[in-house]
């Protein structure tokens, strides 16, 4: 194998974890973290799993650490919120085998419901956090993280952002260091935290002091002396942007952003005229710097950071340049020529389209959830009233029902995907049954985790390595929860879907409608023969009803809609809507 490879940050993390000799890796898919587990699954000597959610992933991987193995858990930024209950206790209990927690943050919310700066979780939990700035560092920092974890008996955060996770750069491989797990040690005074935790409380503060000293000589906190006019303090991808903009400046590049090396910061600030703190999102470094009281001989306020940068969205070389020099970004031409936006759309033949067409028609109030089906909020469906976070839709619906049961109860629908249902939809459904609600839930079972690119989940009967396993039977599961009214429909059958919805909404008890059809992007679905449809111009009355299914294979910009032969998958939803029989399968 060529020693130099072009790897994404996520691929490099997987390689680094393998080189570090890990035994167990767990995660739940979430952009931009997903490819870490997918790539780890390629190494046969690691036990890798997609877990049911991030807390479960955390607990399983942590259990492996307690058993003496190096282990890793991977999640996106909001995944840490799900795992936080467990995470906050682990500084008390420490580790046995090295334990690394990956948080992949998403500045700019490219594929997330919110923007949150998970550097604060390191400070909050009082555990160290490393931040790589390219793929080579991503690989090396994983290994260093395991060493630190074992040296200080502490879980270690490795933080990436979308741009480090998903950009590719050159990586040189090294040999793996594979050792068997250490022997398990029975040690309840360390691991049964609620009883003995008080005694361990001071350990956390002592460890923090030691790690602060460690940070002073940690080789990945690097100073690059150049011109003394500008000194840039930065970490992660911002280092790359700042290097692009200030090639002649001095740099303090922090490989570890918590805890910070106070003496090193003082020394660096002492040596430069003006300090720029270049960081994405919140003023995390800047606030700590100011709290440390780091002085600069040219004036204590000679520091620029969030006074010139926004704390929102991703930075870029353009934004960094613009912030300090006033020039930079070249504007797009949309003030001279109209450039319409291109929002993401559901795929041609997406099974969710059928459900949303029906819900729109029935004028229901729909609480949504996280997945491809969140796109139901956009025209032509305009079908979603809410979408907050994984599993929230069902509880939100029940809360609405509590306030306006008489009116809304018959119009309330919570939609949730199969993967999300298993992640965090079961508990709120139990809540509805337990507390005598009547809300209707639509389980949009497309047989995969569609949003993040088809990862396996417990309903699919396949593991991350595509080995066969038990597949959850949703009807039985939901029945065991106590839901009596369960109906399964094919969302391509618009009439049956509408009938099932009306029936469920008319009941005075909880109901679940399972909309079952596989995602059209699954390989086995794509491999099926497709017979595309066409619009017969002479029969078309230009009523545009076919556009109400929101299919991107149909171009509605002209009077007579046009179906792209290459993109149509022959689902026939548009043909079913046409009252003039003007949409027909193309004769072969």
């Amino acid at each position: 194998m060529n020693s130099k490879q072009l790897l994404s940050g996520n691929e490099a993390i997987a390689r680094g974890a393998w080189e570090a000799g890990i035994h167990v890796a767990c995660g739940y898919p979430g952009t931009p973290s997903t490819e870490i587990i997918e790539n780890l699954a390629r190494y046969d000597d690691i036990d890798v799993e997609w877990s049911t959610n991030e807390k479960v992933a955390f607990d399983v991987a942590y259990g492996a650490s307690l058993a003496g193995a190096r282990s890793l858990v991977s999640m996106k930024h909001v995944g840490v919120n799900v795992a936080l209950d467990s995470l906050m206790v682990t500084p008390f209990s420490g580790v046995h085998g090295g334990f690394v927690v990956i948080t992949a943050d998403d500045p700019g919310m490219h594929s997330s419901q919110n923007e949150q700066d998970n550097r604060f979780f390191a400070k909050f939990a009082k555990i160290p956090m490393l931040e790589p700035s390219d793929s080579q560092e991503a690989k090396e920092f994983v290994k260093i993280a395991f060493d630190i974890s074992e040296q200080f008996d502490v879980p270690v955060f490795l933080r990436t952002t979308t741009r480090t996770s998903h950009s590719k750069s050159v990586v040189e491989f090294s040999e793996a260091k594979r050792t068997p797990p250490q022997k398990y040690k029975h040690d309840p005074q360390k691991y049964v935290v609620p009883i003995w935790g008080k005694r361990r409380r001071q350990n956390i503060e002592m460890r923090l002091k030691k790690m602060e000293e460690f940070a002073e000589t940690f080789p990945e906190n690097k100073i690059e002396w150049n011109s003394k006019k500008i000194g840039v303090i930065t970490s992660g991808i911002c280092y790359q942007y700042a290097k692009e903009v200030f090639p002649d400046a001095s740099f303090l590049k922090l490989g570890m952003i918590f805890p910070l090396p106070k003496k090193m910061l003082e020394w660096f600030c002492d040596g430069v005229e003006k300090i720029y703190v270049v960081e994405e999102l919140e003023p995390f470094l800047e606030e700590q710097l100011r709290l440390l009281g780091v002085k600069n001989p040219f004036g204590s306020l000679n520091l620029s950071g969030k006074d010139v940068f926004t704390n929102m969205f991703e930075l870029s070389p353009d934004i960094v340049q613009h912030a300090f020099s006033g020039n930079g970004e070249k504007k797009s031409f949309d003030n001279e020529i109209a450039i319409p936006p291109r929002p993401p759309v559901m795929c041609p033949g997406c099974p969710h389209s059928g459900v949303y067409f029906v819900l729109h028609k029935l004028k229901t109030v729909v609480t949504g959830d996280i997945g491809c089906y969140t796109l139901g909020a956009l025209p032509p469906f305009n079908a979603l009233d809410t979408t907050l976070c994984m599993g929230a839709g069902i509880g939100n619906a029940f809360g609405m029902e509590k306030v306006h049961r008489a009116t809304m109860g018959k119009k309330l629908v919570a939609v949730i995907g199969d993967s999300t249902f298993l992640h965090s939809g079961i508990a709120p459904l139990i809540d509805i049954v337990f507390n005598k609600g009547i809300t209707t839930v639509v389980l949009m079972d497309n047989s995969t985790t569609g949003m993040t690119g088809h990862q396996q989940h417990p309903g699919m009967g396949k593991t991350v390595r595509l080995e066969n396993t038990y597949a959850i039977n949703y009807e039985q599961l939901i029945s065991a929860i106590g839901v009596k009214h369960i109906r399964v429909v094919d969302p391509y059958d618009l009439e049956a879907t509408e009938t099932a919805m009306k029936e469920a909404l008319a009941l005075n008890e909880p109901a679940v409608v399972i909309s079952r059809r596989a995602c059209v992007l699954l390989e086995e679905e794509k491999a099926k023969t497709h017979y595309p449809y066409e619009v017969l111009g002479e029969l078309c009355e230009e009523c545009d009803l076919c556009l109400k299914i929101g299919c991107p294979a149909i171009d509605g910009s002209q009077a007579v809609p046009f179906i792209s032969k290459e993109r149509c998958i022959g689902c026939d939803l548009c043909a079913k809507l046409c009252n003039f029989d003007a949409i027909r399968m193309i004769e072969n």
Partner: protein
Amino acid sequence: MMKNNIGKNILFAGVGGQGILLISELTARAAIHTDFDVKKTEVHGAAQRGGSVVSHVRFAEKVYSPISKTGEVDILLSLEKLEGLRWAHYVKDGGIILLNNEERSPQPMTEKKVEYPQNIEEFLSSKGYNVQIIDAVSMASAMGNYRAANTILLGAMASHTGIDDEHWFAVMKENLNPKILELNLQAFEMGKKLSQKVLSVA
């Protein structure tokens, strides 16, 4: 080893699902094959498909940011015309813009229909860019497989990168299914011929 220039910033644009990620990957690999430092990244929205997608590829002796600055891109290759217009301000003055002759109307975000901008080629030419429209889909269909369209575009772009053919051939051999390799090598050659016209102007 080939380092007869200081590298290039290339931007690929299009609609999610068109194959931008594969052609930018091939480009990045061809650059690494020449021993350049290389960085590549994608910027896209929530959906796998249908949204506006760009991919930056940068190669030089040393590359820091994976994202190019606006006004610094040497070549923009867009698989769809409107997307070429959307990202054209990234291209440097006098830079090259290659547009696949394909128009895909965006789905509207309101109930109003979308007006697809007219005269994109003329507009961009008037800004001083070196614009070329390439009828890749019909050329590929004439070859017997419309899926080779992206390789025709890649070939048209390759001549402007300064990367020698041997590196392109090597990465195509390494990364494409052997069944479609011959077709793609032909498509690449066909694309290269198209770019002679632009080269003589540039």
